[in-house]
């Protein structure tokens, strides 16, 4: 069974794909049936993923010796493309995470989406997403990965705009699509460059070719390729300049935010970098760039999250910040730390989003946290699970975030101290805004609203994810995550005591601070905001990035549009007008000939006859000259 799951890993993405086709084409109308199909398909692919993972552990497959399956996809002169699957601990870990979170989110959605008109459509999209994300995970080459990369982008677009009746959702979907497209374009160019330079886009072949290439040509071209490739993750994983779509993507339903915009799709960028790490690692400058960008994004996201009021927006900026963390870890050279954090983050962030969804569901789609309060007693299960999630993301031992964050911090400290300091500050801020969220929503004055019932479909995934948030870090630590998922030689898991103490104390300090501000009201939040002045305003307005883009857009697009308009009207239009004018002019000239008088036409006809006669006479004379006389008549 394990061996079957390993050699037929392509079945894992195929299951949700079949579900998508079945639901999309036939069963969209029947909500219960479509949900059953989707959940069943996800469950099957999850079971297969577990078996594949067992097989990988059991059969000694490692990142250095992966299991590879190839099918020739397209062959043309000089071009050779394969569809393949690359199964190593890295992809199996991703398969496990994605299929598990996807399964849990789908179960949650049954409760969350109940009564929605487009219930079937939702499950069709979610299944398509699972299929493409799982396909992305097992891709053996860049091209195949790119295809799935675009597919998940499409699903993201479809699901953000799920409530397409709402203008905001439509706009957000468009924004997400266009913004990630910018990144995807860079990625595409990078892939094409790879094909041109190396003649292959297969990960393993590239890995073998790379050292000799660097030895003979240096790293110049490689840097360019790396930067271009990295633009894709910047867009997809919401890194600094292209992060703007992620907060807006929260217009989609909460399960979508949990699955796509927290746990899986947005980490595709991290996964891509990890997959192509052999390439990035060979150019140190590139790694440093990634590290700084990640650090900046982490700090940047956290600083915005502090001042936001909408529950899902806070989480979205938190996601940006955490993704920055992962990039930072990659940049400082620790693939293990980054993917460990990816692993744990997927659980606790999905948990947080699902909790947020549950809260909003109960509060009748209220999003502003300051309109909530005192929900602790009313929805205790959400309170408990969300607390676990907050503790996990804040890095309180022994929750999951503690182990992964600790590893990132120690990796950063060993390479780059400024980045380490940024990371520590960010960790503090993360704990603070998460505590703020938790305290404001669940403590404080009680609202008298009648809360919606939260069904068991929603509760079970919350509990499961809470358990995973609790144990995934510890489990990863105990079972030596770094032995399986690594770059280069295996490093044993170790724990730096000073860093561990620091990262355990920092969140506690942050919690105390948040408790004093938001629960005991020792210090007024508004007062602090006013004291912070400009900083608060900047943070609240998200550094005015959106406005900046709007201005940029207006300037460039409208400016170019105006130039184009000018060209169109005066140059192209001018040419067209001249041509049409010529036609008109000549037609009026010709029209003058067309007097409508038959006799004129007869006269013209006569002229023609005369000319023909003349020609005939001349020709006849010539002939008779040659044949020396002799008539025809």
């Amino acid at each position: 069974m394990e061996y079957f799951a390993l050699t037929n890993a392509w079945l894992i993405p195929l299951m949700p794909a079949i579900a998508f086709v079945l639901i999309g084409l036939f069963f969209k109308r029947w909500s219960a049936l479509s949900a059953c199909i989707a959940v069943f398909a996800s469950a099957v692919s999850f079971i297969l993923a577990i078996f594949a993972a067992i097989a990988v552990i059991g059969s000694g497959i490692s990142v250095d010796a992966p299991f590879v399956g190839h099918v020739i996809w397209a062959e043309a002169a000089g071009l050779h493309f394969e569809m393949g699957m690359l199964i190593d601990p890295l992809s199996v870990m991703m398969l496990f995470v994605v299929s598990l979170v996807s399964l849990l989110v789908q179960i949650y959605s049954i409760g969350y989406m109940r009564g929605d008109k487009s219930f079937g459509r939702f499950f069709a999209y979610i299944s398509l997403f699972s299929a493409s994300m799982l396909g992305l995970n097992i891709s053996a080459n860049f091209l195949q990965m790119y295809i799935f990369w675009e597919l998940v982008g499409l699903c993201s677009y479809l699901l953000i705009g799920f409530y397409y009746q709402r203008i905001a959702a439509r706009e957000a979907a468009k924004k997400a699509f266009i913004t990630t497209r910018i990144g995807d374009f860079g990625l595409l160019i990078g892939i094409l460059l790879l094909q041109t330079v190396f003649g292959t886009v297969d990960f393993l072949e590239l890995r073998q070719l790379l050292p000799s290439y660097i030895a003979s040509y240096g790293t110049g071209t490689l840097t360019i390729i790396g930067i271009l490739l990295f633009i894709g993750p910047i867009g997809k994983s919401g890194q600094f300049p292209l992060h703007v779509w992620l907060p807006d993507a929260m217009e989609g339903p909460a399960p979508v935010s949990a699955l796509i915009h927290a746990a899986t799709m947005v980490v595709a960028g991290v996964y891509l970098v990890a997959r192509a790490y052999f390439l990035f690692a060979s150019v140190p400058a590139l790694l440093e760039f990634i590290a700084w960008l990640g650090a900046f994004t982490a700090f940047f996201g956290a600083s915005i999250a502090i001042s936001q009021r909408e529950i899902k927006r806070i989480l979205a900026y938190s996601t940006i910040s955490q993704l920055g963390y992962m990039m930072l870890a990659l940049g400082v050279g620790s693939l293990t730390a980054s993917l460990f954090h990816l692993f744990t983050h997927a659980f606790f962030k999905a948990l947080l989003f699902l909790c947020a969804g549950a809260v909003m569901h109960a509060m009748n789609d209220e999003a502003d946290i300051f309109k909530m309060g005192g929900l602790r007693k009313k929805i205790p299960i959400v309170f408990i699970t969300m607390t676990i999630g907050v503790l996990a993301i804040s890095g309180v031992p022994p929750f999951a975030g503690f182990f992964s964050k600790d590893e990132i911090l120690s990796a950063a400290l060993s390479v780059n101290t400024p980045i380490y300091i940024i990371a520590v500050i960010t960790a503090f801020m993360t704990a603070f805004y998460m505590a703020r969220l938790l305290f404001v929503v669940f403590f404080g004055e009680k609202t008298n609203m009648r809360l919606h019932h939260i069904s068991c479909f929603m509760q079970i995934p919350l509990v499961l994810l809470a358990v995973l948030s609790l144990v995934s870090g510890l489990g990863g630590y105990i079972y030596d995550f770094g032995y399986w998922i690594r770059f280069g030689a295996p490093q044993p898991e170790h724990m730096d005591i000073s860093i561990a103490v620091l990262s355990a104390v920092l969140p506690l300090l942050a919690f105390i601070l948040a408790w004093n501000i938001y629960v005991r009201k020792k210090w007024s939040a508004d007062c602090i905001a006013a004291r912070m002045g400009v900083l608060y305003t900047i943070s609240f307005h998200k550094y005015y990035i959106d406005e900046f883009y709007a201005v940029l857009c207006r300037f460039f697009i409208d400016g170019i549009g105006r130039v184009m308009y000018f060209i169109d009207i005066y140059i192209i239009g001018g040419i067209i007008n001249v041509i049409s004018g010529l036609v008109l002019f000549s037609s009026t000239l010709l029209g003058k000939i067309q007097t409508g008088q038959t006799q004129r036409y007869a006269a013209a006809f006569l002229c023609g006859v005369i000319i023909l006669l003349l020609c005939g006479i001349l020709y006849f004379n010539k002939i008779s000259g040659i044949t020396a006389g002799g008539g025809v008549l």
Partner: protein
Amino acid sequence: MNIDLSSGLFYFLAAVMLFSALGIIYCRNLVHSALFMALCFISVAGLYAMINADFLAAVQIMIYAGTVVILIVLGIMITRRTTMERTSMPEKKYIFRASVLAGILFFLMSYIFITAGTLPTLNTVTLPDDTVSALAELLLDRYMLAFEIAAVLLLAAMIGAVVLAKGADEK
């Protein structure tokens, strides 16, 4: 070529024919034009008679000089209500151009006819004297199909004329 045929008769008939043709054009009164046309057709019939086409001469007089001219005169009479004087006369501005064109054409044709000097001027085959029965045999034997088609054509023309002219006096 009939030796007895006097060239004087030919020139006389040709002169009458051309003169009356010009008369058609230059007559102020349309009825006079029609009468000149009748004269022209009669002289053409004379020419036919000169070259052993007596049946055709009769046909010419009966159909052209008789029927066609009478039809045209009738038509002129029916549409007489508007003044014909203004429209019946040739327009001065066209005369020059038209005469130049027609003259060039005439000279070109004459040139061709005269330079093609090797035309046989004698009929070596003797034609039958009884042209009527010879024509009849030809029409009902070799040209049977064409004859029938001509009949159909005349029928169609008759119907067409009736349809077209129908209502010319109604309204």
